[in-house]
């Protein structure tokens, strides 16, 4: 783990234990940042889904490849970046899990859930790998009147 200002970064192995670690860190940091309980649940789930994608679909559990998870609090917003070293994800090729033909598929809901619970989700194919940026605005904080979860 490394810390710089309001930024905390983890470089993790491509394992399910790392997915749990990323989720726990998200829950802790979102709690410390003052987000409401429902928003914290959504943030933790979104980070878990992004971490699963990174470890399973991106790095394919390759011990030589790492996942980087970075948390940054900017003006009260929480910005989380998850990077993998896999083949790269094409956002345009992600099917709609709510389409009738996809409803009974056993996978493909992770990015949809991130988009449901976060205010912004950005997916960028990098060389190599994928970078997913998850943003929760301060409106989801427990002290605020507006609940950020959609």
């Amino acid at each position, binding site marked *: 783990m490394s810390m710089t200002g309001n930024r905390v970064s983890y470089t993790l192995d491509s394992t*399910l234990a790392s*997915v749990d670690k990323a989720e726990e860190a998200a829950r802790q940091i979102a709690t410390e940042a003052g987000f409401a309980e429902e928003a914290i*649940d959504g943030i933790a*789930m979104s980070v*878990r*889904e992004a971490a*699963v994608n990174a470890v*399973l679909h991106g790095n394919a559990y390759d011990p030589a490849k790492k996942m980087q998870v970075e948390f940054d609090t900017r003006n009260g917003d929480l910005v989380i970046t998850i990077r993998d070293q896999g083949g790269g994800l094409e956002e345009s090729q992600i099917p709609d*899990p*709510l389409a009738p033909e996809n*409803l*009974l*598929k*056993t*996978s493909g*809901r*992770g990015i*949809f*859930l991130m988009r*449901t619970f976060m205010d912004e989700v950005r997916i960028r194919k990098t060389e190599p790998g994928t970078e997913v940026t998850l943003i929760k605005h301060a409106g989801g904080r427990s002290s605020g009147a507006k609940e950020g979860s959609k």
Partner: protein
Amino acid sequence: MTMKASTRQVAGIMVVDISGRITLGEGSTLLRDTVRDLVSKGHKQILLNLGDVTYIDSSGIGELVSAYTSVRNQGGELKLLNLTKKVHDLLQITKLYPVFDIKDDEAAAVKSFATAG
């Protein structure tokens, strides 16, 4: 908390009491193995009691879908019992709520199976 599953028979229906987290890895594998084991032994009327499920991720949702379709493809029925608010909300968000037959009373759920009783 890792997932736990225990099975009991009520009026011919197999009730699976699940607790903990249904997530990628141990939880989803245990759910899959439990349902597969029941079906292989000829138990095709299954009620999944999710009352003590504290957390479910997209892999866990996928595993519920897989259990539902695999039992149905074998000519059986799989229903869900006692959804927590979190699981209820996730099934609503993913539009899976109308897909499943969801109950909140065990006795009524058991009676609702086609050949129960």
